[in-house]
């Protein structure tokens, strides 16, 4: 059917899908195929949602991750679950971005935060081989690679540190944008060189849906990301289950969206209602399946490993 490399690529992809399912099967984690189309959008100030016209009167949204749906299942007593399927993000088009991509997301009840990191490293090793893993905190990465204390530094000092990486229009950037710029341009190039880097202890305002704890006298989010060869592959949390706090964070994200003239979204009340009933103490993580496959095949872009990459005009 497909000659040469394409056939190998399809076989390799199929083999990795099978291995991923085997990984969860071994651990007693059951597969759930969550709805891709939802009446409410996920709310994150930096993730835009693709809207779909469901009927003449109704608008739905394609999921940006199966997170809300899976947590509703957890609240119903599903136990350990995983999702392996496609998710959608508006405007994410680039070398390592495709508006539709395959994601593996799973939740483990009672597994510790460090246990979940180990679980995720093992999952990535299915793709990448027996790589060593090392850990670095958000704070340590800024001091090691940029020589700055990112919480004590003034916005001007952060901007000074950013200048060698040629930002444009930085005069008008706020603290968040400047920190994210330093992260993507000054730190990420150093992460995951020759092994997995676990990036952890995020500042509280970047907790997303993770719990915030006190560690060495500092409030940090129990959130981790894993990098290999500077590519972000996984994002995990010790899950926050406080419905009031979640509502507050969603409203905050919506306010940020509004301040950036972006579309705001109605809150997902079904999700918040489930969270108010409570989910078991658990950790969750999502892994970019296509990116893992890309690195496994030593490809430079997602387009090289996706059978149907979005035809980017860039």
């Amino acid at each position, binding site marked *: 059917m497909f000659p040469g490399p394409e056939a190998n690529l399809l076989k390799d992809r199929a083999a990795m899908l099978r291995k991923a399912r085997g990984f969860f099967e071994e651990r007693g984690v059951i597969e759930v195929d969550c709805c891709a189309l939802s009446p409410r959008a996920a709310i*994150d100030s*930096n993730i835009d949602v693709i809207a779909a016209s469901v009927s003449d009167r109704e608008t739905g949204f394609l999921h940006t991750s199966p997170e809300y749906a899976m947590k509703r299942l957890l609240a119903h007593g599903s136990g350990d679950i995983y999702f392996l399927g496609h998710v959608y993000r508006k405007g994410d088009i680039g070398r390592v971005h495709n508006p539709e991509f395959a994601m593996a997301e799973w939740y483990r009840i009672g597994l510790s935060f460090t246990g979940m990191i180990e679980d995720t490293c093992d999952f990535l090793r299915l793709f990448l081989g027996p790589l060593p893993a090392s850990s670095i905190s958000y704070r340590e990465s800024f001091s090691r690679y940029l020589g700055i204390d990112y919480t004590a530094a003034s916005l001007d000092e952060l901007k000074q540190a950013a200048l060698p990486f*040629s930002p444009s229009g930085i005069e008008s950037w706020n603290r968040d*944008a400047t920190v994210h710029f330093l992260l993507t341009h000054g730190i990420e190039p150093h992460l995951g060189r020759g092994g997995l880097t676990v990036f952890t202890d995020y500042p509280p305002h*970047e907790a*997303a849906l993770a719990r915030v704890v006190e560690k060495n006298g500092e409030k940090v989010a129990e959130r981790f990301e894993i990098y290999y060869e500077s590519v*972000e592959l996984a994002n995990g949390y010790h899950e926050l289950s406080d419905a009031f706090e979640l509502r507050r964070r969603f409203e905050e994200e919506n306010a940020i969206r509004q301040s950036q003239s972006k579309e705001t979204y109605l809150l997902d009340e079904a999700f918040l209602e489930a969270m108010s009933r409570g989910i078991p103490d658990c950790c969750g993580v999502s892994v970019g399946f296509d990116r893992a496959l890309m690195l496994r095949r030593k490809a430079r872009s997602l387009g090289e490993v996706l059978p149907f990459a979005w035809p980017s005009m*860039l």
Partner: protein
Amino acid sequence: MSTLSTNEIRVGMKVEVDKEPWLIISNEFVKPGKGNAFNRIKMKNMISGRVVERTYKSGEKLDVADIEETQMRFLYKEADGAVFMDEKTFDQITISNEIIGNNQPWLMEELIYQVVFYKGAVIELVPPTFIEMLITETAPGVRGDTSGRVLKPATTETGAKVQVPIFVEEGEKVKIDTRTGEYVSRAGS
């Protein structure tokens, strides 16, 4: 002036930054999973040729450069430049020697050149990629080697100094690649 969002900027587009025109070489989308998106844009200054890389916040607007490209016929040389005629309007303009720069040896009467204007002023002259020209001076041809791998210096009718295979004779026409100044083949082949 029209603008373009950094998300819409593609290779080959021309933008104005710091009051100068730039040609887009690449535009990479950079975005952490839960963070601000950026566009890392590589561009070449259309006047100085300098290449820079700059990162913008996604969605930021850049001005479109006022660039116009016109096909013009080379008519004749003057002391301080060369006169060209617009193929459509028949307007004539003089392009300075400074702008012609290294393209002096590629000026051949009656050939069509691409002339790039920025805000109405000429900033670049682009000769045809391949030009056929007469060899006016070279050492006598050697019949033995026909591989084309052994080269000798030659001068063309426009004064261009080129390297040609040793079998090429004076009075022959050859095809030259103006981007590299290299011999391509005998003319007509």
